[in-house]
């Protein structure tokens, strides 16, 4: 799994050279988003699934943190209704 993730990250870094003439990290935000949207809608199943997996890891890394949950206003309490009174 780790090897597949490393391979996908390398592809994301270098595939943009074919289209934009520069690697991913040298692109502006708009070109980065355009390139990633292309991966998300790719006709190649493996690329699409790979991107989905990477995106899931990124979401996990960000929204999986209690601090990020609190920041978006998600504050559940084990006492449920009582805690709202």
């Amino acid at each position, binding site marked *: 799994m780790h090897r597949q993730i490393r391979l996908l990250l390398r592809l994301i870094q270098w595939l943009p050279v074919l289209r934009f003439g520069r690697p991913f990290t040298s692109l502006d935000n708009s070109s980065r988003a355009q390139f990633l949207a292309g991966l998300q809608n790719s006709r190649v*199943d493996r690329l*699409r699934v790979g991107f*989905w*997996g990477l995106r899931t890891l990124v979401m996990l890394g960000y929204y999986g943190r209690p601090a990020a949950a609190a920041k*978006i206003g998600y504050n559940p*309490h084990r006492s449920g*209704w009582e805690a709202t009174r």
Partner: protein
Amino acid sequence: MNEVAYDIVIIGSGAGGGTVAQELAPLCSDGVRIALLEKGPRLRDSDFTGREVEMAQILYEDGGGFLTADGSMTLAMGRGYGGSTIVYTGTSIAAPQRVIERWNVPGLGFDEVNRRTQKFVQQNNVHLLGEDRINENNQLFVKGCRRLGYRVEQFPVNVKGCLGSSLCNLGCPNQAKQGTHRVQLPNAERGGVEVITRCKVLRLEGQTVIARVDGRAAGGVGDPSAWAPGEYRIQAKVVVVCGGAVNSPALLLRSRLPSALPRLGHGFTCHPALILVGEHNRPITNFVGHPKSYYLDQFVESDGFILETCMYFPFTTAKSMSGFGDGHAAFMQAFPKLQMILVLACDHVEPDNRVTVDRHGLAVVHYRFSPEVKRALAQGVITAARIFFAAGARRAHVPAAANPTVPSEYADSLDQIVDESYFRPGSVTVSAAHLQGGCGMGMTAADSVTDSHGHVHGVPWLFVADASLFPDSVEINPYLTIMALADRVAQYIRQEARSLLNSGVAHA
């Protein structure tokens, strides 16, 4: 390797295993030795923190990230003392008559399944929550459905003293949910059944169960296992497999059995599901109160989908929405204003959808969305979005669309916006928690794995008692039906105990 011997070994402690353990416990007073082996830990009440990633790592197989072979879907499988009954929402529905009749299992009638179901409705305190316990996330679903003329129904739930933490899917922090960890397993232990947690069954070698007990990691949560860490050879006269629709067929596939079972692993269904969100103009009560109080099943027969209310956690919600960047973040930042609906497709048995094992013996689930499932999901998405807008949402996130952010002005154009071609691997996040089939019941080994008593064809000492018995999708939340079937399996074992236990291989 440690050697132990029991008369009956039950594998798994969820709706199936917990029920079998309770129902066989009276045999213990006659000197019958029964062990229940559970892969996950037994948590203490204080271990249920409600923190999403932390609890998912403990209570779900692969932390909730178990993927089908082509990566098209995530499968949720609970683990721990109580199995998936720790992490469901407690919604308790009896199997419809049309489903049991369609199953057409010789000897298994609707009246019997329903009678056994009602036993667990009573035992698990199944009832409707009062109106004052229904949050706005659920009220808005009812409002939207009624405005559209849909026939919305309230879920009976199996809670006792629910405080409305909304954290059901991470294990109730208030022990209100009446899963097997609260009802059947304690009953079984009081009756003499030994429960061994952190005990993973590797394979069956004939009537010998090969298992490994893991120690509790430093800083880990839950009670240590009743057995010391290490590998065990457990001799049994009767084995009852209750590992669920993925792990039960996988265990039997990697075991040495004296009978050819060509249908083993086949017939897998799972109610593929999508989480949808609609954003309102104001904050609503959504992460307080029971998350799943209502459902809409009037489209099951015509369009093959069910809608249910739901409320998930930040990472699960973020993962479930399509896209990334500003559009995605805008929905996440509106979390207190979000209404959520779960779309479930009632899939049916397909020849290629099945469980196998890889060369290491690990479970592999092959699943492709049939044209009917894609159509059901698309119709479900359209209907859910209509409900959001009828309830007053300003916009909805529609995952199967070129642009998933759909403002309310487009409520009449949803048919043109939703595109079922997006239901392909990697485009839309689809998950499933109602895993069924793989050891289906039937008449002979040519059409099934077990008979209607869960007795594996050609293997007199081996039974199955879990959702893997379902010959096809049950089209509702499955746990009460699992309990009803497990009750039937246990009754048969009790009735036949004399011959089963005396003809079994005797061990010291």
